[in-house]
């Protein structure tokens, strides 16, 4: 750390801070969908990463499609792609719930295994349809490059885009779960399924749509990540463990917990990365999480539950 002037240090911290915030938004976007599925429904979806990949591949597909037939729309397709990714992943999730998940609600460990099987099938489908090599959509110009508020601070535009998208999605989820009628029904079903059924809530439908929503959000995350990295058949498995850690650490039942968890994990990891190698930073972060979870299994930010 020697040899840097104060302003240089300031710039480094600013960029590191932004890298941390960028990582935070990535983790949060991934975790939001899973928090809904795991936190609200208690379902372990090991295929969550693959639903993200669905979003990414959808974006790639739309990108090639636009390039081939509507090259003049290249600047606009991306936002459309995000919306389409949401629906594609969501619909797939809807069917997955219908065919598979709904039989396994009382058996969480079995859901874990069954969804892993689903993820294998999805991975192979990606490989068969899109090939084994990694692909990337052609990103519109306005996403490229960076903004330079000062000479030494370089903020990539795609990072800001993902951050903005995360904020929009988080607010959307918050509004949906806590301010809308439908969200009320979801929460009622999770808290007391029998009673909810008794008052006329179609709990099966609520489950199905909730799962679909979680997958849809995963799709958005996948679409957003095409701005950061390329996509391959196994990209989903890269993210799944991190995502679970964020959700479990945040206290699965709490949306605020998920946000706080994603923030602390992201900051911890990026700050560590500054001092030590990337892999060791990851090891220490995960290790700390595991140790904390051993002391507080319900998650660090879980609200107090009556014993």
């Amino acid at each position, binding site marked *: 750390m020697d040899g840097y002037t104060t302003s240089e240090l300031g710039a480094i911290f600013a960029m590191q801070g932004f890298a941390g915030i960028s990582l935070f938004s990535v983790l949060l976007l991934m975790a939001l969908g899973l928090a809904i599925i795991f936190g609200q429904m208690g379902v*372990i979806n090991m295929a969550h990463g693959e639903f993200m990949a669905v979003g990414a591949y959808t974006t790639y597909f739309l990108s090639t499609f636009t390039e081939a037939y509507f090259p003049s729309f290249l600047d606009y397709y991306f936002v459309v792609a995000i919306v389409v990714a949401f629906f594609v992943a969501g619909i797939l999730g809807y069917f997955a719930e219908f065919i*598979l998940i709904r*039989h*396994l609600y009382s*058996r*969480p*460990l*079995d859901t*874990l*295994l*069954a969804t*892993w*099987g*689903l*993820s*294998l*099938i*999805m*991975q*192979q489908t990606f*490989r*068969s349809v899109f090939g084994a090599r990694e692909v990337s959509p052609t990103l519109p110009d306005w996403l490229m490059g960076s903004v330079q508020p000062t000479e030494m601070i370089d903020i990539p535009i795609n990072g800001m885009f993902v951050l903005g998208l995360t904020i929009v999605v988080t607010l959307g989820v918050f509004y949906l779960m806590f301010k809308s009628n439908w969200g009320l029904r979801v929460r009622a079903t999770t808290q007391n399924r029998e009673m909810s059924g008794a008052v006329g809530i179609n709990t099966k439908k609520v489950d199905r749509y909730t799962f679909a929503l979680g997958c849809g959000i995963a799709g958005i995350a996948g679409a957003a990540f095409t701005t950061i990295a390329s996509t391959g058949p196994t990209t989903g*498995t890269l993210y799944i*463990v991190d995502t*679970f*850690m964020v959700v*479990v650490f945040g206290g699965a039942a709490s949306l605020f917990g998920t946000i706080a968890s994603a923030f602390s994990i992201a900051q911890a990891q990026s700050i560590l990365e500054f001092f030590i*190698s*990337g*892999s*060791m930073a*990851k*090891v220490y972060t*995960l*290790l700390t*999480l*595991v140790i904390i*979870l*051993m*002391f507080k*299994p319900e998650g660090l930010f879980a609200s107090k539950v009556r014993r």
Partner: protein
Amino acid sequence: MSFFYEKILGGKNGTAHLLILAAVILIIFPLFLDAFRLNLVGKYLTYAFAAVSLVLLWGYGGTLSLGQGIFFGLGGYGMAMFLKLEASSPENTTIQSTPGIPDFMDWNQLTELPWFWEPFTSFTFTIIAILTLPALFAYIIGAAMFKRRVGGVYFAIITQVIAVILTVLIVGQQGLTGGINGITDLRTLNGWDITSDSAKYIFYFINAGLLLGVIVVSRLILNSKFGHLLLAIRDKEDRVRFSGYDVGNFKIFIFCFAALISAIGGAMFTLQVGFMSPSFVGIVPSIEMVIFAAVGGRMSLIGAVYGTLLINFGKTTFSESFPELWLFLMGGLFIAVVMFFPNGLAGIWNDYSHHITNRLGFVKTGYNKIKQTLVPQKIQDSSH
């Protein structure tokens, strides 16, 4: 005599199944397979150790671990370290800038052996380490989690994360561990060439013998009061606790035992295949071990072995001819086992085998008839 027969051999059925398995792996395979294929089967049988460990831990104990690869890997790396040190003797490594240390350390500009490698120059230490360190690691994890009543899904996820931590650690510290390529180029064990065909034969039989031994010991455990308690804990943990048992201790023990078994498997893997890498430590191999147990039958020690063999045979066959099909099949298998046959092949066998044994009943009656007609003759003969 009766205790031995009932508890260890498992009565009439149990003995028969154990004998059949022993015959298959000790006689039939070596007889009909060439050295190369037998070595392959030996490799599969090392995975079977992990599958058997899951029968104890998950099938009977109700605790799903998605990280048995951790212990398999620790056992395997222990053995690999010993073998690598032997292969990196100063005579063999004269071209290195620092002779006497493993090649990957030399590439990473290390000039001396890291402290934790030193003891692995001794074979005795290595064996002791393989038998104790993974179990010790399991004890730490188990004590931290089971004493705090962390179980079920949370436990499974945490084992997964620990598997990731270990993998990232191994891959990231190439100088200390050989990195993503693992520890390779292993040649001799105390002077004896482990790559020769004869060595592979011997290791195969040691492996098979150990596996059968592990199954017998596991049966002992499962048939004791401890085993009944394990089932009870799986089904009604609270009732067990309120009958005066410290449930956490029981879970810790079976977790450590499962770790021990997996570690032995890992060590035998290194001996037979000649290398160890982080690709046997992480989440993918760990969850494959679960599927071996699930398909074979999570409640059946012997079934788990067959499950392991079946899936690995399938993998080898299909990946050559229909690589695309294999992952679909695996994924489908996961789902099918969970949804339709939760007790795996062993469960199906238990449910339907009486159809076969009844049909074979005609053989038995025929045999008895023949015996009857022969016996009078015998009496006649012996009167000479």
